[in-house]
């Protein structure tokens, strides 16, 4: 690939990633426009909540950032690395520094928690070590530390199938942390969890942001969680940004604007 014209030089090692989007459009093969000319700047170290109805494009926004969803047109830079058009080794190197958390946890249920967390080292460890499953002591140390940070270290040798939903999501967070990420993306991380567990998982994400300084982007559909755990709130509707501002000061009127309807009990976690 030709050297990308970067507006920002690549972020120095260990520093969190900033995100820069210019006129980014995502159109799926079936013709649906998920993102419509989005321009957005996220500073390194921010904790951002992205809200919107299902189909508003918030999942596409998050997945575009690590190229799970390809950009159709426009420019996207993450930590000074050009993402639109990036492929192969170059893309994997950037992805290796971006942790991702999914609604469905996406763990390999039939293997141990530790093996799942070591997936975070795939792009960092030598190829032959990952194929043999012979990770270095340093890699395993990272995995154990990550498990300890989400307070689930005693479960390290259990099968992932035996975990509860909340525990599984914490293992997924530990997997992301084991990447030593500079950006963490969370796609509806608490949508399949009960309220206390949801708060615990959101608390973990906030600590990742505050203690480690990592940039965190979280998709949420529950307004109180978005308000409480984000410092910045981005509202999406029909693939466009309709709100971008301080999370704490976003009131119900703002959410009604984002959702295009009145706010009901189904939009908050706590009644």
């Amino acid at each position, binding site marked *: 690939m030709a050297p990308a014209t970067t507006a920002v030089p690549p972020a120095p090692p260990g520093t969190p990633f900033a995100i820069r989007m210019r006129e980014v459009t995502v159109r799926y093969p079936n013709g649906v426009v998920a993102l419509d000319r989005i321009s957005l700047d996220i500073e390194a170290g921010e904790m951002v909540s992205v809200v919107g109805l299902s189909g508003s494009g918030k999942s596409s926004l998050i997945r575009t950032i*690590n190229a*799970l969803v390809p950009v159709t047109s426009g420019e996207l830079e993450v930590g000074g690395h050009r993402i639109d058009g990036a492929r192969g080794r170059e*893309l*994997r*190197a*950037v*992805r*290796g*520094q*971006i*942790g*991702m958390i*999914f609604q*469905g946890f*996406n*763990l*390999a*249920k*039939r*293997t141990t928690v530790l*093996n799942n967390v*070591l*997936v*975070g080292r*795939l*792009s960092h460890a030598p*190829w032959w070590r*990952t*194929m043999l*499953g012979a990770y270095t002591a340093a890699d395993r140390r990272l995995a154990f530390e990550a498990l300890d940070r989400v307070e689930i270290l005693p479960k390290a040798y259990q099968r992932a199938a035996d975990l509860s939903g909340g525990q599984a999501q914490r293992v*997924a967070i530990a*997997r*992301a942390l084991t*990447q030593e990420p500079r950006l963490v*993306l969370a796609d509806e991380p608490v949508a399949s969890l009960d309220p206390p567990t949801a708060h615990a998982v959101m608390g973990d994400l906030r600590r990742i942001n505050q203690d480690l300084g990592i940039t965190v982007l979280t998709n949420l559909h529950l307004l109180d969680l978005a308000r409480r755990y984000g410092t910045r709130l981005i509202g999406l509707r029909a693939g466009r940004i309709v709100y971008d501002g301080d999370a704490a000061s976003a009131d119900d009127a703002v959410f009604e604007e984002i959702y295009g309807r009145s706010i009901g009990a189904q939009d908050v976690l706590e009644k």
Partner: protein
Amino acid sequence: MTDLQIPAKPRGRWKPYAATLVIVAITAVTLSPQWGIAFGFDAISRNWQNGVGKILEMLSPDFSFFPRTVAPLLETLQMAVIATLVGSLLGLPLSMWAARPTNPNSVTRTLVRTALNIVRSVPDLLYAAVLVAMVGVGALPGILALVMFNLGTIVKLVSESIEANDTGLLEAGSAAGGTRAQINRALALPEVAPAFINQTLYVFELNVRASTVLGLVGAGGLGLLIDAVRTFYRYDQLSLIILEILILVLLLDKFSDVIRRRLV
């Protein structure tokens, strides 16, 4: 009570009738004198006495023949073990190449699938016959024939099991920056392992059974002995061999059952 709003009957209720009609038509054509296969039950009445003599002979197995069956029996077992090992080890990566979630590249996927469809469509006895001509009489052509046969079976069943599994978790590997091979190793392998071991055990059983037949075309194992005693009309010795195969297969069935139960 208010009037029930009964939904309209769904369309397409004629399908079972049409299917029945097609099956009846196919059966009729098969049995008809012009297009069908030619056979008559009168052949039974003409020949049944021949069979009864053989069966009576087989009812009294010649146990003194046992020492001579030991070596071929072990050879059959060894052929099955080696073929299962080689076939399953080659089959595992090929299964991942043949399944959509573990190989999104449609060109290589179609290539592997087509190749294995061809491999699977050739019967094992034909492989053995051709291989005996190519590499000579003995256990080697038998093993090679079984490997081909195993590849076809394992890749078909294991790749289908990969496609039936939840594949969202593979996305986690992509997001972490893994290569396709790394993702398949770290995430797809543990998920498919039980199905793979299951199919491997199944194929092992099939191999023991098949390797007794392969000897008929010169590909080693018990089959060579079967062919020899049959040529000399020693049905008492033949029945001992069949008895041995029966016991062996029952033992293997028990053995794989024990392993399977520990898998889940």
